[in-house]
């Protein structure tokens, strides 16, 4: 029985259904990552502003997002916020909002780190040459900061992809839910279905995340030596 168990993956449209389920989480991850990159860069630049009030607010936002587990944030938005504000938000919308808020905070911190880690003489030299603020950013800060932040940003993207697996817990029908449905249907025919289905989902996540982490590691090594 056991060696035949793997067939459950290839029966009917099961594999296709799993892949469609996976696409649901990927879609959430991709949208959230896109939003995080755009607004995260802006947030990171804001964090470098030398204004105590701005820095305190930014710090509070970052620490609040960091210290509470993402699953709790999902619950807060899905069950809490909707009840308090008397609005209805779909689980997918809530997921995108929560993951974007998280991504913006983390991306902002990466950008801030990349900018402030540049030696102060870089900025001063630019100033001495008579460059304007905009030119200093365009020709000195950004080209150097980008190299420092891209590996970390890619890492953040894999973390976000992995963490989107949590959305099943607020009721998004994604790969894990589809997996459970397949297991329930085939439980009598193939008792070992759950092993193979979960192994398959495990492998799917690995196939997506592993190349991305390899890529980030490669970039990191390449830019470290320059």
């Amino acid at each position: 029985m056991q060696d035949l168990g793997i067939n459950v993956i290839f029966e009917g449209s099961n594999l296709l259904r799993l892949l469609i389920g996976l696409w649901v989480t990927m879609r959430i991850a991709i949208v959230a990552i896109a939003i995080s990159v755009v607004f995260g860069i802006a947030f990171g630049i804001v964090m470098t502003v030398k204004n105590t009030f701005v820095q305190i607010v930014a710090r509070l936002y970052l620490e609040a997002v960091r210290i509470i587990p993402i699953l709790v944030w999902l619950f807060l938005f899905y069950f809490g916020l909707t009840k308090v504000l008397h609005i209805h938000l779909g689980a997918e919308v809530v997921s995108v909002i929560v993951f974007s808020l998280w991504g913006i905070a983390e991306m902002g911190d990466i950008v801030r780190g990349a900018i402030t880690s540049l030696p102060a003489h870089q900025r001063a030299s630019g100033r001495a040459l008579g460059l304007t603020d905009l030119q200093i950013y365009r020709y000195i800060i950004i080209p150097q900061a980008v190299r420092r932040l891209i590996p970390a940003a890619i890492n953040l993207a894999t973390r976000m992809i992995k963490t989107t697996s949590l959305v099943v817990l607020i009721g998004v029908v994604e790969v894990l839910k589809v997996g459970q449905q397949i297991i329930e249907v085939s439980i009598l025919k193939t008792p070992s279905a759950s092993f193979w289905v979960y192994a398959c989902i495990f492998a799917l996540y690995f196939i997506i995340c592993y190349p991305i982490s390899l890529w980030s590691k490669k970039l990191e090594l390449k830019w470290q030596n320059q």
Partner: protein
Amino acid sequence: MDFDFIVKSIPLYVKAAEVTLELSFWGILLSLIIGFICSLVIYYKVKLLAQVVQIYIELSRNTPLLIQLFFLYYGFAKIGIKFEAYSCAIFGLAFLGGSYMAEAFRSGLEAVSKIQIETGLSVGLNRWQLMRYIILPQAFSVAIPAIGANAIFLLKETSVVSAIALADLMFVAKDLIGMYYKTTEALTMLVVAYLIILLPISLLLTFIERKVRHAGFGN
């Protein structure tokens, strides 16, 4: 806000917080042990074992804890390997955390400069003494911030174990929402509980990090 309800639910949360803390404690402890051993295997480039460890690290770092737990808990049960939810959760946390801790230790070990090692060898230390007196003290001070961050990460990840029916903080909040429809109260208590646990630990780690920063050579 129904404050009577909140007061009545406090014992439930305290009990759940104990579960969360207990799981985290064992998970972090095992992660540290696994991570330390794995990092040494990679550092000394032990034949074959180093490759196995590398595969484990990649597998564990590139898959979500939720999927690892489901695979362990529901998947393995069907091929005859049954875990209780509790040990399954600890095992899952250790599986995930081990690789993160290994990376933290490894980056610490690699940060120890060659000159240090050569100096140690030239004054006649053997391999064990070199590890004990030269490499480890410096590696630790470099690795501490990452280890601390990983510990907090693992503590937060325990929120996922409610998915395999363990009565942690997350589970209790879900239960109260489901049974009494006291959403606001249950969620407020949940956030408060996590803050009570995580804030002091996070502050403590910042403090420790500042202390060990002076331990590096040349500072």
